[in-house]
């Protein structure tokens, strides 16, 4: 019942968004509404209502139809083929980034929980790490990768993207693992002590299972972060083949082919949904560890 209702609301939300788009396109001014424009000076004034012409706001059905039309004329395959390929490429890279991020985050969380001194020393740096702008950080990772490559060990460009994605992904995991491992009740810790159970049995029998409700949201956040990180990193270091690069490329052709950039946009939305959905599957497998928690 509740699952069906949730799906219904989701579909309703998407429909509402499409209706608002088309309604504004129908009612709004074709060339937008500009205040304070000076005659004969293009780009002057402030646009307070966006343009609604087909170049600025293509119809929703045109966007969808464009997916079925050939990518760049001639015999090229329909747009959806390169979009799916690019999204799959980025998903693969984001998944590698997610795995690296989850591993690093989990190790950091474990170390910080085990030794309070490590928490005091590491946690502030971990928080600060997330304030470094990705745009500034991405080229550095790439150039380090290139230098390693020159040293003889092959370093593919996608690995740079994955590392950058992991840089965003590890943060929620580190914090989630730390909080999760500290989640067991006092009484359960007393009980394990009464059994003379050491660190590892307590970790595997008590701390990790008790951490699951904290871990799942952390893994989900990490998946979303890894996708965002991968898309931004592709653009930032100019890697070909992924959805990020494709977005920029087709947006550049937007004035002549306005529906085309929406292809990769839909692709990246689908990418995010698939990533978040895969993590939700992990949660389904662990549902016994979420007893007492409302499972939606």
């Amino acid at each position, binding site marked *: 019942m509740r699952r069906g209702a949730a799906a219904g609301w989701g579909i309703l939300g998407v429909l509402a968004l499409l209706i608002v788009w088309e309604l504004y396109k129908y009612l709004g001014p074709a060339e937008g509404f500009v205040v304070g424009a000076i005659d004969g000076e293009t780009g002057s004034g402030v646009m307070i209502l966006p343009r609604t012409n087909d170049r600025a706001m293509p119809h929703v059905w045109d966007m969808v139809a464009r997916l079925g039309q050939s990518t760049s004329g001639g015999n090229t395959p329909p747009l959806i083929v390169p979009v799916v390929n690019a999204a799959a490429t980025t998903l693969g890279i984001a998944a590698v980034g997610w795995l690296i991020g989850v591993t690093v985050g989990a190790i950091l969380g474990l170390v910080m929980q085990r030794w309070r001194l490590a928490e005091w020393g590491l946690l502030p740096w971990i928080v600060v790490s997330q304030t470094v702008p990705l745009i500034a950080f991405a080229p550095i990772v790439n150039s380090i990768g290139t230098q390693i490559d020159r040293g003889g060990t092959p370093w593919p460009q996608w690995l740079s993207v994955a590392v950058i994605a992991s840089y965003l992904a590890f943060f929620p995991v580190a914090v989630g693992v730390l909080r999760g491992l500290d989640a067991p009740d006092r*009484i359960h810790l007393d*009980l394990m002590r*009464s*059994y003379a159970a050491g660190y590892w049995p307590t970790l595997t029998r008590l701390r990790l299972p008790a951490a699951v409700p904290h871990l799942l949201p952390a893994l989900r956040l990490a998946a979303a972060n890894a996708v965002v990180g991968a898309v931004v990193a592709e653009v930032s270091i100019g890697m070909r083949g992924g959805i990020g690069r494709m977005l920029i490329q087709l947006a550049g052709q937007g004035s002549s082919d306005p529906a085309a950039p929406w292809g990769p946009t839909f692709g990246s939305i689908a990418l995010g949904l698939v990533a978040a959905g895969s993590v939700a599957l992990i949660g389904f497998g662990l549902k016994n560890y979420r007893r007492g928690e409302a499972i939606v």
Partner: protein
Amino acid sequence: MTIDARLAVRAAGVGKVFPTKDGEVVALTAVDLTVAAGEFVALIGPSGCGKSTLLRLIADLDSASSGTLEIFGKPAQQARIDQDYGIAFQQAGLLPWRTVKANIELPLELHGVARTERSVRVAELAELVGLTEFIDRYPDQLSGGMQQRVAIARALATRPSLLLMDEPFGALDEMTREYLQSELARIAAETEAAVVFVTHSIPEAVFLADRVVVMSPRPGRITQILPMGLSGMTGDALRESSAYFERVTAVREALHGAPVERANER
């Protein structure tokens, strides 16, 4: 076997001091207490009298600041490592992701008991606490009283000769409480384990215990130890006997003779 080893608990001059920001708080002072093997001893007193602290010292969940404390002739820490006691708290404290069976066998699993042997032992224990049909349920599918019975089964899993219980029935309704008291009296008799039982209920202490230890706060100490001498009788016969009511009165007077801390005076 020496005389000392026949004692489940021997405390001599035991004290516990907690350091706080405003100086030291004396939780327990000069506690002398022995519990014989197989004996049922209840600790009773108003809040702050250190009865739970004393239990935690015996369990080696905290360590004593002064005095000597021996469990079966060993230091408390060694007794904990040797699994000489089983413990149950006011909350059942079951692991919510484990079934009843998996909860009961947790201590066995931690001590490397083989799977088949574990299953046999769990079946015995489930039978003992009357939960055989519920062995595959999860804790959230059980009532509070059933959860507490699982906790008792778990405490008994390693066949300890000493059972430590900290207000195990404190959160239950009166009917479940009386039922579980009778069950515990039977289980304690069957397993021949010594029991140290913390409670704030006078009837509960009198019903269950061979001796009732009356404690008093500020600083936490033992003020009186009352032998009950009601062993012959069990169940409702005991609850309705005049000897039982006499003992209840005696314990009440012993408690009130000590300065009672009332909630509105704190």
